[in-house]
């Protein structure tokens, strides 16, 4: 390969130096387009990050089901019969399902913002108390910051142990006090704290999730006289199984098990995180697409601008091109020159727009960080892959912008070019 000739670059710089205002104006469109793309894609990502952080402690393939009242008479039963699930139903479901990996029974005490139900010494608070089994963290993951979660031994022996959220700890314990091994009183029954957890994710949901207490399902039934009644099921759908299909199949099984009409739509309630996730996913997909589309339109306008300016520039420099050809410039050298100028202008402008865009995003990001809680908008960012993709698009657009001016420059015969004024 021949050594790079510095004059090739000097020629390009001369174009800009000779008419800086024009170079600036013609680049403005492309720069603005790139800036727009970076900002919109980055902001969309920021919104996405915020929502994802709020959904952080939710497992994408989880689903919740509970028994309600029948809406159809069936096998001699009247409609309006209220259905109930118990541990035997859970075991039966686990045995017969084709769609689920895990079924966790769950029962709860002291509903949302109920009266104070938990006390320890002089401290008292109102918390959700859940009876669950040892598999529960798979459905609703959190971080065990101290001690452990419930284990099969706790369930078999119906131990009076509990795992508390970090907000429960702050309410019931003094600063610096170690809750592990301490006793707390839940509706008059004493439980020993064996673990403390912290929810994943941030936001209001996570804060609420930090105010729960988990005790063995079996202990719950005995201590609070609910026996083996199951309030609802938290389940995990098998990988690669469609969420809607799994939901319907599970409902069908439960209807069968509970002797309800197979077509009864209201007998079993259900809520699928997977479907929720899919919806959110498609919203963000659409948002990304729209922001890219608008950016691309801005970019296209910029490219048309550059093409236009280059055409004018070639018209003005017809004489110069004629002189160059009289001095032995081959068509290829003319192509290199015009295409080079267009690429140079476009890419310079594009890079400026990109740098400004990324800079603004970073600024916004640090601003939000400093401001603390940012609600649903956090970490507006753009990843390297997107940047590279945009660069490739930019290069393509620059080539596109150069085609017409280059063809124009080549179409002028040397003698005509030399004869032109200017």
């Amino acid at each position: 390969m021949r050594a790079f000739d510095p004059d090739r670059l000097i020629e390009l710089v001369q174009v800009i130096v000779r008419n800086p205002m024009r170079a600036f104006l013609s680049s403005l469109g492309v720069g603005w387009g790139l800036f727009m793309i970076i900002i919109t894609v980055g902001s969309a990502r920021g919104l996405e990050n915020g929502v994802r952080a709020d959904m952080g402690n939710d497992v994408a393939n989880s689903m919740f089901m509970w028994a309600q009242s029948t809406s159809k008479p069936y096998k001699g039963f009247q409609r309006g019969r209220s259905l109930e699930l118990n541990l035997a139903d859970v075991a039966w479901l686990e045995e017969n399902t084709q769609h689920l990996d895990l079924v966790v029974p769950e029962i709860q005490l002291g509903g949302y913002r109920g009266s104070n139900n938990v006390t320890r010494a002089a401290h008292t608070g109102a918390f959700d108390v859940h009876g669950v089994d040892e598999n529960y963290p798979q459905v609703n993951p959190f971080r065990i910051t101290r001690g452990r979660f419930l284990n099969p031994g706790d369930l078999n022996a119906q131990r009076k142990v509990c795992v508390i959220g970090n907000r429960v700890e702050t309410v019931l314990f003094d600063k610096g006090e170690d809750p592990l091994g301490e006793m707390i009183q839940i509706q008059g029954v004493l439980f020993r704290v064996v673990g403390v957890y912290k929810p994943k994710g941030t936001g209001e949901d996570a804060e609420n999730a930090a105010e729960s207490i988990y005790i063995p399902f079996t202990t719950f039934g005995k201590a609070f006289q609910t026996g083996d009644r199951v309030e609802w099921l938290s389940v995990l759908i098998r990988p690669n199984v469609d969420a809607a299909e799994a939901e319907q199949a599970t409902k069908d099984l439960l209807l069968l098990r509970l002797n309800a009409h197979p077509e009864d739509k209201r007998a079993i309630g259900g809520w699928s995180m997977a479907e929720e996730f899919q919806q959110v996913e498609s919203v963000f997909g659409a948002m990304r697409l729209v922001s890219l589309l608008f950016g691309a339109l801005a970019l296209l306008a910029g490219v048309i601008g550059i093409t236009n300016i280059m055409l004018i520039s070639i018209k003005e420099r017809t004489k110069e091109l004629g002189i160059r050809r009289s001095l032995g410039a081959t068509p290829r050298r003319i192509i290199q020159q015009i295409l080079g100028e267009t690429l140079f202008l476009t890419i310079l402008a594009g890079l400026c727009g990109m740098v400004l865009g990324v800079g603004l995003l970073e600024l916004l990001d640090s601003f939000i960080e400093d401001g603390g809680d940012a609600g649903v908008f956090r970490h507006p960012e753009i990843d390297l892959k997107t940047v590279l993709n945009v660069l490739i698009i930019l290069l393509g657009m620059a080539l596109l912008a150069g085609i017409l001016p280059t063809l124009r420059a080549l179409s002028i015969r040397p003698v005509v070019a030399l004869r032109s004024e200017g």
Partner: protein
Amino acid sequence: MLSLRSIEKSYPLAGGQLPVLKGIDLIIEQGEMVAIMGSSGSGKSTLLNVLGLLDNFDAGSYHLDEVDMSELSERQSARYRSRFLGFVFQSFNLIAFKSALENVALPLFYQKIPRRERQKRALAMLERMGIADRAHHLPSELSGGQKQRVAMARALITTPRVILADEPTGALDSVTSNEVMDVLREVNSTGITVIIVTHEADIAARCDRTIRLKDGRIIEDGNSKVVIEPTAHGYTPDAS
């Protein structure tokens, strides 16, 4: 050797064709110094452009050193312009935003000669033209005579076989014109063919051979002293 046979060329005109060259037969040997004269519109520049491969022709044949020029691609023409031909124009045709040195070095840029050597040779050529001290001036900062010296340096830098000059003194006063002719004579003495289009008898007189065009035809061709002798023909060289 340049050899034209029955060259014809016309320009498209609204409602037809304007014939400009109507059968030119011409042979110019290597190392000749030739003036082309004729009244305005007689086709002098057109002929020079054909010779310089800047323009095409409609009929006839053109051989440069036995090579047929009529079938050249634009790329091949560019190669010939780069290696064999040098141009000097009445309006200098310097690139305004480039310094004298950059202008002179440009043909070597298109020959892909390294920058350092380009600069060296361009400076040497400016020195030969006696304007090395103006190497870094822009054309707008030069006098007409200086501009034409830069243009001649640029035409000569590739050591072409042929210099084609279209009224090189047309924009200069008589003293400067003479200096330009001194340079061209000196160039010719090194064996380079020089072809000059001119209106001026004084200029033609400094060439060895003069060709007179009229209405796209060669009407006279011979020793300059004979062709431009006004009394022998009953008209002044510039009239008719």
